[in-house]
């Protein structure tokens, strides 16, 4: 049957040329996606509906099982902790009433200054972490909220009390978050007590110890000390100001004797992030809004 045979014989590209062509495709893609986001959109759309539902399912089953196992293990510990916590609650109650008094005072003073509560109430949306980066070199994770829920690129992500990271990629029903402990992450921050600016950079080698690195701190009078709180600074172009990052855990002079660097203990436990909050406000937009108000 010669006819069928002809049908089977296709023109086969040699693998060498194929490699060359696909390499060019890759490089072209890199250049194209670096400047525009034309190609990413359809691809992320398709893969979003292909992969994310499975990840969602596995994650919910997995977290359910992990939760049950954890529950049993924790019960004993919890009973002990309960006792200790009860004492702490009593102490904190007293402290709290003092703080509430302080808060009223603060509000009054703020009104006097005309600052208002500009940054205290962000509009946030809760999301579940469904998958972590497939490799071991970066700390990126996927959350189950995307464009359909109003998540946009460059939105800040927080969990509990502190900054987790920033949205780098958005699909219809998923978004990719680069955490601040990622090696490629840079956050402009400031020391809360002295308002000195510094850079917070993730470090893969410090990941095991649960620490991140900071540098470029100019502090001539040695006012910054261990235990000082760091927040995101006003001069960052992507991060909203005043979000807690962590505490300084070690500090040392740089070789140039002008700046200091050291390590930070982040206020978020990155090993156990489960649910995060995405702040639905972009830094650029806030600035724009403020400008309009002035006019």
């Amino acid at each position, binding site marked *: *049957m010669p006819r*069928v*045979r002809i049908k*089977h014989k296709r023109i086969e590209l040699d*693998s060498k040329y*194929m*490699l060359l062509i*696909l*390499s060019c*495709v*890759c*490089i*072209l*893609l*890199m250049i*194209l*996606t*670096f400047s525009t*986001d034309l*190609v*990413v959109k359809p*691809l*992320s759309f398709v*893969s979003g509906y*292909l*992969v994310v539902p*499975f*990840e969602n399912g*596995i*994650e919910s089953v*997995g977290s359910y099982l*992990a939760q049950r196992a954890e529950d049993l293990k924790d019960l004993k510990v919890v009973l002990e902790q309960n006792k200790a916590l009860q004492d702490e609650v009593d102490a904190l109650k007293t402290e709290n009433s003092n703080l509430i008094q302080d808060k009223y005072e603060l509000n009054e003073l703020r009104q006097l200054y005309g600052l208002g509560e500009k940054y205290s109430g962000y509009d946030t949306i809760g999301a579940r972490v*469904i*998958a*972590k*980066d*497939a*490799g*071991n*070199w*970066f700390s*990126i994770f*996927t959350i189950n909220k995307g464009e359909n829920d109003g998540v946009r*690129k460059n939105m800040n992500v927080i969990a509990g009390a502190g900054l987790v990271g920033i949205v*780098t*990629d958005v699909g219809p029903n*998923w978004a*990719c978050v*680069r955490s601040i402990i990622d*090696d*490629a992450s840079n956050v402009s921050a400031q020391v809360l007590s002295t308002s000195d600016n510094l850079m917070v950079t993730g470090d*893969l*080698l410090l*990941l*095991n110890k649960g620490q991140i690195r900071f540098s470029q701190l100019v502090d001539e009078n040695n006012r910054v000390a261990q235990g000082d709180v760091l927040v995101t600074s006003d001069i960052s172009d992507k991060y909203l100001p005043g979000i807690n990052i962590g505490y300084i855990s070690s500090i040392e002079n740089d070789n140039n004797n002008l700046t200091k660097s050291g390590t930070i203990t982040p206020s978020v436990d990155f090993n156990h992030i489960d649910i995060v909050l995405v702040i639905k406000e972009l830094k650029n937009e806030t600035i724009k809004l403020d400008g309009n108000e002035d006019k």
Partner: protein
Amino acid sequence: MKRVLVHFILIIICFIIQSTLLRGIQLGPVVPNLVLMIVSCFGFMRGKREGLLVGFFSGLLLDVFYGGGILGAYALIYMMVGYMNGFFNRIFYPEDIKLPIFFVGFSGIIYSSVIYVFMFLLRRRFDVFAYVKQVAIPEIVYTVLATLVLYRPVLYINSLLEEDERKTEVIFS
């Protein structure tokens, strides 16, 4: 056609397992790189051509989710790994498990060094040995261990496909 579909499903399964399930039971901060394993396996089992295709598409999948908005970087790396493994196709012998382990280990070394050089060294992270000790070696060891477990199933799937293809060929010729 059947083969394309099966490869596609295998890649997706590995990707999902790696980014969800294995994170739950990970030892330390490192997980085995199953996607790399599958690319390497198809490279030496099926030759350069399929190795580079499987590598390209699984890399593209990783790019879409974890490329940070830039497509093509992982696709290029995984494609190279798949292609290089295609050279081993000539000395590959299905019943022997030692060689695949060597091939996967070799792929791990290539992958880790490329990632380190292009994504860390170029950003002035000079501490090579610390990265090797803390990330590269655990990753390669875990991936090789995963290969020990998963090599037989993958081989079985491949042999089923090959048998199927032989049958269709007999019918058509």
